[in-house]
């Protein structure tokens, strides 16, 4: 029987820092810590007293990877707080921007961060020579996604044009047409991506899990919606605190969350599990090819679910653009009347549901903010998965076990830099 | 000078035909409530009812950034001069901006002729138009309110129900003959033109309280005026006044390499004498350390240094710097304050 300690200082190829510490005795995981030594950055404190319109650009800086998601969640929370209802055009453009980020981030994770594991390479760097075609395809898709976000948001990271009330600048009709063409031309690359990941050996491991994602009646939810659980319950967004129960456990290093059970998962796999029926045809095919149908409980397949979502948002974007073009673009400005109040924003960012809640006073200043990021919600689930995983690795070498654990952490695509709620605690 | 007359509808079709037949037609178009010179896709884009554009047409003769050379490293390096001169018809250039082009023609044409400027200049056709002064314009004070005779190819003035067209060059005449229906001007048209010009002159409100030709002399005596100190304290050293000015032509030069580190180009980029490091040399010595000396330098360039060299004011009265200076530093107030100070001293 195997006995050893795992101590991976800084799991690489994740956004942010995470340390993995485990003590395996006789094939059993006696102790497991998924630590997050990321520096706390105090966003909730820093935006107190700020004018409401400053929240999106400030909270965008919580995470460079899902800065678009933070911006949109913040805008949504603020607009709900001040009682502003955005126009249909504004919402369509927000969805389009959100879709760009989903492609950006999922391609980055699937190709650059996760794929090397699946082909046994230490990083994407050697793949640039050994699998040049694959890497070039990844670069093509990634470039498209970035230029897409540039076009709609004004910048790939920390968008400029999306603000409380609407948009500071609209894309032109020609730009939208061009983007539509480029997206449709990229669909073969998406299909090839599905093929690629279909052929890759995802480890087989399952653990029954509660999955949470936003859900809307009429579409696969990204921006707003209710909080739906694979356990069947549905919670309205404003009551998120009753579903997302934050807690700190003594041996842990980060603020975590639970739902019905000891832990739950959010992210691409959670969304596909919750909203499978709303996937677009191309995405359904992809899900079939990759072996995902609700409820899939293999956390390694989160990467595959990301590929499914890429197919979904690419196809959906064609439709969003068509609707925008049909309506015709109108300069609407972004002036708002602010009234005091409290509001919650919920957005599905690449790694799961992101909540931004704000209270605004009569002077338009923020008096209180609560931000819950997806990775924090996944922490407990990651640890629960690891505990279940190790006994199944019976007979493997120490290196193999370590790698399997690391890969599992990576499959969650943890974006630890979002350290609004992450803390490092020294335990004595 | 030959004066022709066009019906207004004919002007539109003239522009339409220019856009359709000439390789590049640009003119004032709207941007966020202001105007800029930009490509015209159709005559509808053109909006001649404007005061000034954000940037003067200088940007076509001396672009914000321009390639001078292209090279490939090696032994020996292969170097090729670049003279880009896309043919362009610029429609709707106001008299002050024609004067600005007169000024850059002098500066770039003097002694060593600037080949890059000249190439672009030769490829450009200028169709002037009369204008609508606002509270910042002071062209009448520097004598740039009338179209500079040798600077345009055609010049259009709205005289009510028709437009007059002055022909300034053979090139202009050819364009007119090829694309426009026009007729001989009558005495009534000429009277209309005069009337329109007087109306415009009357509409210019800002002014310098001094004969512009006296300015080099005036500046001679006020270089240590406390006014410079006051302006220096307000100046942000942001360069806005330089960048929007039709007669500011200073530049910086540098090499840009491609990522392969084998090929590259030498580019020049707009610079401005109000920027902090404009006169800084290796070792860190800055010959115009304080904002006040930089602001002063700019005024002296417009109204003394270059004026003495070329005979006429290098300020065209377009008011762009007044409009874009957040600190409200502007030529009429500055010059009038200096004048008042000199007069006080004399008394």
């Amino acid at each position, binding site marked *: 029987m195997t006995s050893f300690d795992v101590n991976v200082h800084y799991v690489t190829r994740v956004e942010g820092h995470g340390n993995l510490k485990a003590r395996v005795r006789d094939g059993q995981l006696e102790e497991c810590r998924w630590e997050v030594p990321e520096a706390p950055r105090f966003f909730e404190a820093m935006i107190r007293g700020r004018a409401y319109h400053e929240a999106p650009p400030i909270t965008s800086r919580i995470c460079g990877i899902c800065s678009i998601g933070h911006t949109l969640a913040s805008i949504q929370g603020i607009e709900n707080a001040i009682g502003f209802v955005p126009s249909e055009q504004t919402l369509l453009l927000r969805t389009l921007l959100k879709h760009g980020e989903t492609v950006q981030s999922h391609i980055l994770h699937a190709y650059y961060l996760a794929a090397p594991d699946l082909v046994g390479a230490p990083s994407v760097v050697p793949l640039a020579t050994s699998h040049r075609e694959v890497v070039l395809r990844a670069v093509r898709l990634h470039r498209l996604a970035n230029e897409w976000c540039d076009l709609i948001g004004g910048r790939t990271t920390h968008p400029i044009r999306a603000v409380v009330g609407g948009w500071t600048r609209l894309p032109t009709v020609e730009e939208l047409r061009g983007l539509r063409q480029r997206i449709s031309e990229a669909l073969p690359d998406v299909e090839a991506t599905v093929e690629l990941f279909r052929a890759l050996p995802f480890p087989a491991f399952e653990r029954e899990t509660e999955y949470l994602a936003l859900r809307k009646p009429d579409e696969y939810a990204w921006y707003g919606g209710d909080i739906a659980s694979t356990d069947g319950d549905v919670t309205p967004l404003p009551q998120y605190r009753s579903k997302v129960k934050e807690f700190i456990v003594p041996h842990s290093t980060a603020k975590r969350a639970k739902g019905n059970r000891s832990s739950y998962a959010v992210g691409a796999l959670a969304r596909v599990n919750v909203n499978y029926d709303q996937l677009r045809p191309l995405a359904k095919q992809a899900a079939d090819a990759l072996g995902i149908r609700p409820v899939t409980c293999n956390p390694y397949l989160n990467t595959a679910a990301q590929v499914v979502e890429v197919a979904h948002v690419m196809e959906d974007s064609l439709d969003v653009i068509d609707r925008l073009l049909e309506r015709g673009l109108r300069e609407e400005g972004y002036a708002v009347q602010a009234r005091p109040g409290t509001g919650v924003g919920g957005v599905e960012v690449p790694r799961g549901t992101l909540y931004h809640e704000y209270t605004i006073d009569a002077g338009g200043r923020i008096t209180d903010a609560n931000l819950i990021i997806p990775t924090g919600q996944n922490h407990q689930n990651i640890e629960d998965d690891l505990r279940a995983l190790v006994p199944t690795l019976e007979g493997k070498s120490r290196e193999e076990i370590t790698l399997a654990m690391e890969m599992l952490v990576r499959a969650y695509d943890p974006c630890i830099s979002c350290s609004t709620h992450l803390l490092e605690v020294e335990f004595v | 000078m030959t004066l022709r007359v066009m019906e207004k509808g004919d002007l539109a079709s003239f522009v339409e035909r220019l856009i359709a037949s000439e390789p590049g037609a640009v003119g004032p178009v709207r941007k966020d409530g202001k105007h800029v010179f930009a490509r015209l896709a159709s005559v509808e884009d053109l909006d001649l009812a404007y005061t000034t554009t954000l940037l003067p047409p200088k940007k076509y003769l001396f672009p914000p950034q321009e390639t001078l050379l292209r090279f490939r490293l090696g032994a020996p390096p292969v170097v090729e001069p670049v003279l880009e001169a896309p043919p362009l018809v610029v429609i709707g250039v106001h008299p002050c901006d024609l004067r600005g082009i007169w000024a850059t023609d002098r500066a770039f044409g003097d002694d060593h002729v600037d080949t890059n400027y000249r190439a672009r200049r030769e490829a450009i056709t200028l169709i002037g138009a009369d204008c609508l002064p606002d509270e910042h314009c002071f062209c009448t004070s520097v004598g740039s309110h009338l179209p500079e005779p040798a600077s345009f190819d055609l010049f259009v003035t709205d005289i009510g129900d028709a437009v007059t067209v002055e022909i300034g060059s053979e090139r202009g005449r050819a364009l007119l003959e090829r694309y426009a229906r026009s007729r001989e001007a009558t005495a009534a048209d000429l009277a209309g033109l005069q009337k329109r010009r007087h109306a415009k002159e009357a509409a210019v409100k800002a002014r310098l309280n001094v004969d512009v030709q006296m300015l080099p002399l005036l500046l001679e005596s006020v270089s240590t005026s406390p006014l410079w100190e006051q302006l220096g304290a307000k100046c942000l050293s942001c360069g806005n006044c330089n960048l929007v000015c039709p007669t500011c032509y200073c530049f910086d030069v540098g090499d840009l390499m491609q990522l392969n580190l084998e090929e590259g180009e030498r580019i020049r980029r707009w610079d401005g004498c109000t920027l902090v490091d404009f006169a800084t040399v290796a070792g860190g010595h800055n010959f115009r350390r304080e904002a006040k000396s930089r602001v002063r330098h700019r005024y002296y360039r417009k109204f003394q*240094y270059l004026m003495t060299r070329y005979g006429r004011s290098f300020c065209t009265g377009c008011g762009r710097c007044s409009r874009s200076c957040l600190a409200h530093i502007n030529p009429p107030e500055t010059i009038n304050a200096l004048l008042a100070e000199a007069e006080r001293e004399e008394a």
Partner: protein
Amino acid sequence: MSTPLTRQIESLYLGRPATVTAVRTLTDKEKLFDVELADGPLGHEPGQFVEVSVFGYGEAPISVASSPTAPGGFQLCVRNVGRVTGALHRLEPGAMIAIRGPFGRGFPVDRMRNRDILFVAGGLGLAPLRSLIGYVMDRRSEFGHVTILVGARTPGELLFNDEYAGWARSPDTEVHVTVDRAAEGWTGHVGVITTLFPRIQVDPKTTTAVIVGPPVMYRFALAETFAKGVPEDQVYVSLERRMKCGVGKCGHCQINGIYVCQKGPVFAYAEIAGLEEAL
């Protein structure tokens, strides 16, 4: 005007191809480059400068440090302070560069003929001065008494110190050297360059003074020179400014109404005495 033209013809900004034939390290910061043009001699006057291109790095104005009377190509003495000068310092013999110029107005040698000359060189100022010193040495009989004052901050920073003795051996020539701060082995004079003035005799009626050095030096060196009675129109300086084009366009080198690259870099003191921004 119907075709877009990228004309492969003359450009104001295209230099003449040149080869660096030798590189000599003078001090920690300065190197001396021998340069030969592919298409013939430079044809400069003492005190003029050239625009030197190292492709990929840019272009910089550098004074010609050798006399036109010297055989072969010409020399540039360059201090490493940045992009272009740093790139020059990394060049090996055989490297290809490009040269525009010569530009500007050099020293008025005709006005100096048969007169006594007082040279005052501070630091890198000796680089442009050396073109004139070399000229005077090569045509020694055409000039009167020659006094050369050289100053540097430390002995290690003295430029061309292997040439002082040769100059001093010329008839009717004296050379005085000083450093601001001595170092081990230094037996010469210590003190700023103005402390050399009490040692020299100057006949104000027959002397032309030529002073080149860093901005701080001018004020003091000029005062000493005037104190010796040399008139303002017999004192020459060479001024440094930021400079990009070398041909009176880019605006950087302007001192009040004067372009250093056109009217300078050499000026009679009388020409710039009234200009606030000159010194």
